[in-house]
């Protein structure tokens, strides 16, 4: 049979594919990416927190927005004030439909005076065009032509410097254009791990050469290719939300309850109160004026409680070895007051963590709740406490 390839390969596939030792592949936006390169992600995760993890994030959707009205288009589309985005600055922001329900979240990088790059989890070309009516802009989907790597961890700066990249003064959420071994690339001090880290944006044709350069220069600094399992642990510790896991894009919702406003997913800080008109502004202003109904918070599941519930069945506490992405009910007394959507055992913090949607009035930091866990085929409720996000926020992230 004459089969066509179902999943796309990223520009790094020639390097990453031989490293995936246990065939632990997964899908990400239609691309084939590694869950882990080694049979277990422990060392990959450890590198993110102790050396440097190298993560292929090429499946992100990437758009170049140019022209005299580029800033106006983006400002009209997203909830943050893009007019204040300085040259070389990166903004993280959600964007909403007319009802103030989140469509997607991503970053806007100001590459030069009138060119911006938007990254997103879902395709957004149609939405960009719908918002661009009457504006003098160019919109290019450069997803396939642009490869992206996240270099994350305490040694990430040193590795880039060893390659001659001038990132010593690069501030958090700023970017620089540079060359590494004659490869032109853009380096932004951004990432999805909550650690010191950078994202490298390069032409797909140069992807393999860049990978080789990083591995060569990084080996002395403990660089380790890391897959999505390791990234997932790090992003939960960092309290970072994930589309299709922690919330759903409004157009995919079957029922209204499946939609979220920015306030409900801990992104209220990213909704400008002072900028000009933007999608969902009216609804979001009205929502801000009301008492908040839902919040997205961190939960710490108490060890004593876990130990006790497992001890009832003569077991030691069984902890998730990779992050889970199912939905676990959260209770206050006998009432369900929310649900957790991601969780993991944090190898660094030595705590069982979860990210959860909690209803008022139970979402205050310190609230004592219970999360459902399964102990030897039986549903139990473990004590949990609402914690401030991020769970892990090292000085070096911004320093």
């Amino acid at each position: 049979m004459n089969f066509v390839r179902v999943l796309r390969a990223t520009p790094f596939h020639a390097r990453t594919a031989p490293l995936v030792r246990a065939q632990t592949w997964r899908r990400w936006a239609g691309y084939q990416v590694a869950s882990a390169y080694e049979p277990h992600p422990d060392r990959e995760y450890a590198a993110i927190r102790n050396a440097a993890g190298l993560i292929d994030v090429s499946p992100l959707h990437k758009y170049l927005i140019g022209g005299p009205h580029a800033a106006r288009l983006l400002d009209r589309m997203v909830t943050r004030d893009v007019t204040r985005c300085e040259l070389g600055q990166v903004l993280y922001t959600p964007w909403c439909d007319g009802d103030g329900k989140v469509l997607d979240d991503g970053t806007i990088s100001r590459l030069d005076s009138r060119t911006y790059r938007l990254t997103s989890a879902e395709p957004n070309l149609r939405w960009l065009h719908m918002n661009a009516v009457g504006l003098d802009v160019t919109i290019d989907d450069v997803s396939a032509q642009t490869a992206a790597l996240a270099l994350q961890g305490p040694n990430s700066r040193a590795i880039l410097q060893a390659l001659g990249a001038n990132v010593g003064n690069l501030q958090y959420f700023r970017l620089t254009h540079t060359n590494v071994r004659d490869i032109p690339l853009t380096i932004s001090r951004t990432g999805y791990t909550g650690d010191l880290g950078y994202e490298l944006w390069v032409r797909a044709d140069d992807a393999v050469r860049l990978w080789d350069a990083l591995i060569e220069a990084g080996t002395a600094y403990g660089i380790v290719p890391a897959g999505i399992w390791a990234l997932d642990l790090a992003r939960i510790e960092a309290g970072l939300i994930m589309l299709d896991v922690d919330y759903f894009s409004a157009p995919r919702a079957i029922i209204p309850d499946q939609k979220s406003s920015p306030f409900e997913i801990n992104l209220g800080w990213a909704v400008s109160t002072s900028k000009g008109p933007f999608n969902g502004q009216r609804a979001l202003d009205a929502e801000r004026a009301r008492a908040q109904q839902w919040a997205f918070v961190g939960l710490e599941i108490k060890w004593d409680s876990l130990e006790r519930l497992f001890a009832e069945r003569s077991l030691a506490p069984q902890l998730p070895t990779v992050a889970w992405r199912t939905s676990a009910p959260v209770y206050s007394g006998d009432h369900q007051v929310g649900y957790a959507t991601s969780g993991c055992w944090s190898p660094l913090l030595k705590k069982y963590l979860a990210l959860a949607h909690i209803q008022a009035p139970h979402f205050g930091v310190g609230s004592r709740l219970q999360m459902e866990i399964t102990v030897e085929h039986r549903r139990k409720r473990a004590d949990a406490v609402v914690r401030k996000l991020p769970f892990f926020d090292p000085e070096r992230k911004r320093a």
Partner: protein
Amino acid sequence: MSAARYDAIVIGGGHNGLVAAAYLARAGKKTVVLERRHVLGGAAVTEEIFPGFKFSVFSYVVSLLRPEIIRDLDLPRHGLQILPLESTVTPMDNGDYLAAWGDADESRFELERHSPHDAEAMVEFGRLMHHMAMAVKPILGMLPPDPASLSPSDLKGLLKLGGHFRSLGAERFHALHKLMTMSSADYLDEWFEFDTLKATKSASGIIGTFLGPRSPGSAYVLLHHYMGEIDGAFRAWGFQRGGTGAISNAIASAARALGAEIRTEAAVERVTVSGGRATGVALANGDELSAPIVVSSLDPRRTFLDLVDPKALPADLVTDVRRYKFRGSSGKVNLALSGLPDFTCMPGVGPHLRGAVSISPSVEYLERAYDDAKYGEFSRHPYMDIVIPSMIDPGMAPPGKHVMSIFVQYAPFQINGGWDDAKRDAFGNAVIDTVSRYAPNLKSLILHKQVITPADIERITGLSEGNIFAGELALQQLFFLRPSAQWAKYATPIDGYWQCGSGTHPGGGIMGAPGRLAAQQILKAAR
């Protein structure tokens, strides 16, 4: 000879007649089904037209069969087995193709090749159509209330319906309104830009109707085809193992297990009526059977104008039935093949041959196909939905050989000069010539061909004017107007005489809902 006595007689062994009989038997009624042909199923029959090659002669795919019927009659135990029909490939005139695969990522990338805009719009469109199917689904299982009536049961039904529509919310109600009023081409224009995509999607809006993609009302037919669900998933179509006749046989087996008697080659001449009450039927062979309940699964024309004396019916009903539009517009070409067709746009043997191949390169192509029919000719270049069931169900053809089913639109029943053998040959040749434009080796593979015109559909199955839905699926012939305003609840003006075919609510396709709803009404009236 005294007439054999039954509690209920069902005229016609099509799937709806069999469903009605199964439900009546399940309620303890001594029931007999009378089928004119030697084979059960009506338009859902499998026949070995050519030695070793089995064909779903008429209806060829399944999706709309109501899940509650599958459960109530435990059809899987009686042989229901739906095999997946995962993809649709549309060859384009420039040598390229458009494919919709079973996998969402794969389909998105494929559509992105043609239009990134449409690939994104598809997500939202899919969600909306899911909502619309959800919105209409309860109506499929509902007795249509008469909006002009003040009877408590009608008012209750209308209130229920009103409440249901209110619960949709504004956005979905507006979308439903559009679907009920627009043409499928206009409706799809609101969403998509890629012509071949719009054409392939709008084809669902013309199947079995005498409408073009630009005719208002075709958007509803589009929705009708979206309502199909398999295992709870909307818009899923599949093949029955052994052809659609195996579905009819599964329902028949369930009916027999419940105590129903099923006779083939038992043509009913007329319904016997005495004092305004049905008393039984007279068969063509002279036999008479008696029963206080007689159910016709035939279409409204046969039910009201042929099986009973129209003089015994109210004149307005007779007029309504005379006005009821059939206008068969589809034909079928069934081919026995020595091997697999080689499509120029996707050479060789591949997954595309396990799915549908849609000949719908552009909206204009479909509209021009309709233009031919509008003026009384078959389409010189028709819309075609091609499947090769033997790719999925090897039992349909000898090893290495294949059966191809080509559904063809348009072939008008009222063709200039009437249908005859020469016209049938010309029609078959137009179909094969057009498919050969996309799969040039086709003619060299043909071992046998069966060409079916609407006149043949009428002659063989009894469906008036060869309409595959037992009456057009047009808005003026749906719900409380199917088949006639006062007689949309399966009863007739003759006491004890009932209707249960696809010409009643909620209409055509292998759905079974009319048979089930009718049986429920009959049993309610008998209590």
